[in-house]
């Protein structure tokens, strides 16, 4: 049996809205992944370090405060700097559609916006 996929769900920045992050963390766990959740108010540095240390394949970032454009790309960049460019990053939250191309160009693989189901996230991870 192959090793379980490990995923870090993280809340970067100062945003306290963790309902979505916790829901996704739990839904991914129920779908059979190994999930680590960071809790609130993590710096991009702390998230990247945790991702490397926990040896995860995926990092899921959640942000509802509007700070995604500064925080998400920073995590990707830090992972590269820490020689872990193979750790894949996806994001979710209140993210305007016209911000998504920029985030993808910065290396965030996928963005899930309000209304996306946990099944979509599960399917996406399984396919990629």
């Amino acid at each position, binding site marked *: 049996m192959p090793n379980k996929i490990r995923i870090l769900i993280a809340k970067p*920045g*100062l*945003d*306290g*809205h*963790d*309902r979505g992050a*916790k*829901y996704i*963390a*739990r*839904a991914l*766990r129920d779908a059979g992944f190994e*999930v680590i*959740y*960071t*809790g*609130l*108010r993590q*710096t991009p540095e702390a998230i990247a370090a945790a991702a490397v240390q926990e040896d995860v394949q995926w990092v899921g970032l959640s942000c509802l*405060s*509007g*700070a995604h*454009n*500064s*925080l998400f790309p920073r995590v990707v960049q830090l992972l590269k700097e820490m020689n872990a460019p193979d750790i894949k990053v996806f994001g979710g939250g*209140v993210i*305007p*559609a*016209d911000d998504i191309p920029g985030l993808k160009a910065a290396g965030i693989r996928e963005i899930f*916006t*309000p*209304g996306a*189901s*946990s*099944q979509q996230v599960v399917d996406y991870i399984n396919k990629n």
Partner: protein
Amino acid sequence: MKSPKTKVKAKPKIKKAVKPVKKKAAAKKPALKAAVQPKKQDLFTTLAEWNNTCVQPMLAKYPERKKQFLSTSGDEVKRVYTPCETEGLDYQKDLGFPGQYPYTRGVQPTMYRGKFWTMRQYAGFGDAAESNKRYKYLLAQGQTGLSIAFDLPTQIGYDSDDPMSAGEVGKVGVAIDSLADMEILFDGIPLDKVSTSMTINAPASVLLAMYIAVAEKQGVKPDQLNGTIQNDILKEYIARGTYIFPPTPSMRLITDIFEYCARSVPKWNTISISGYHIREAGSSATQEVAFTLADGIAYVQAAIASGLSVDDFAARLSFFFNSHNDLLEEVAKFRAARRIWARIMKERFKAQKASSQMLRFHTQTAGSTLTAQQPDNNIIRVTIQTLAAVLGGTQSLHTNSRDEALALPTEDSVRIALRTQQIVAHESGAADTVDPLAGSYYVEARTSEIEKAALEYIAKIDKLGGMVKAIEKGYVQKEIQDSAYRYQKDVEAQERIVVGVNKFTVKEESPKNLLKVSQAVQDAQMKRLAEMKAKRDNEAVKKALGEIHRAAHGSENLMPFIVDAVRKYATLGEICGVLREVFGEYQESVVL
């Protein structure tokens, strides 16, 4: 004279357990009594007969839409409610007249016949000047109170130039670093005329101090100030996340404010004990009431332990609830909350003054019900939620804008949201009689059910050692998360329909013209902060911060020291930095 008589006449329809009412009405209209008040035995028999002869044959032919009907909160909703469900209810004891204990029907005798609720739109973004412009716009549109949204760095006690603030400055509210920003924020707004609500918790003392100082500059004395600070740290640990310090020093900051305001800012609501965010985090209606009132109990206990007498501060406690889509459940929730709180204050804390027993509350429509899909549908959701808040007897209301699942609301969207309140107030008729849903079998039954279940939660929290302990154990957070998880799973399984999201969807273009706050705001804010620091008397600031440091180590009331420091333009980040040094920082107990 006339209106009590009318009420008395109407009562027997509702329930027969009310002896004095029943007698009077019976004397007047025996025929009516016989018609609507069958004996208990008869009623249960008739109900069973109705079920056998009417319901079952119907079900055999036409099954109902679902096997089980659940409220938004997951409680079972029966097919029909009858006097069987309300038979234990005693009108005088459990409802009373509006403005009378236990205030189930409302905290004032005339409610909206006297004056509508305060229409108060929560607003703030970018810098102080931009937010000042939005406040003036809202006041010009007929809004009757201000409600300040601060950005996250302000809420967590960081200045705009702090590395922790990167990306967040001005995003979800206005950035305030010092008194200089507050002067711009309230420029041209007379603080003796408006009432201002500030959503600020961990650093509430600092923002209140700035408000007092800016009022002084306008020539307005502290005892003329009207408003509210949220100042509710417990729900930050539970659901909202903008905590700074651990519980013990946080509770001290709160009781310091209670004491200071009782003396110096007597009309100020010193706390807004909030269920709103607990509900947004996914709790049920019952949990919202239970955990909010359990937080309230913790604050009352802390204040009493600090030496205050309950009737000296209890009248200044206010509450803040969510208004969700399930109209009748929400009305029942508001009514239940008033009844439980009145009884807690009178029976448990022996509060004597009526004003100490009254639960006054602000309401915000439920942000979590807004959909990013077909956003105009949100106007309808907000209308239902507005109606729930009004039928539930709120004292003030914020209505969300249709585009808030996408971004900050535009001016047009905010105007529609305010108009929604104005239409309900002036056109719906819902505001013309007090507590119009009282006596509905369903609403009364739900009110009693929510009360009972909430009291069970409160007893459980007491058993765990009170709210602070329950939070530290992760109990409250887990209960809420379980509800949230169940709800979302139901939505994904289409057992709950969210129009436009999991049914009735359309292909949509992504929305245009969303309001965004640019990085330029942070750059400009940092520049202003640096200029201000260069101009102020830095020696005086240093001395004032030293005084706060000394007082924080002791047990003096911190408020006077904080007021002194903000007058000298000490920044929010500097003051909170000193307190962080002395108090330490809270570490979240992560539960999944």
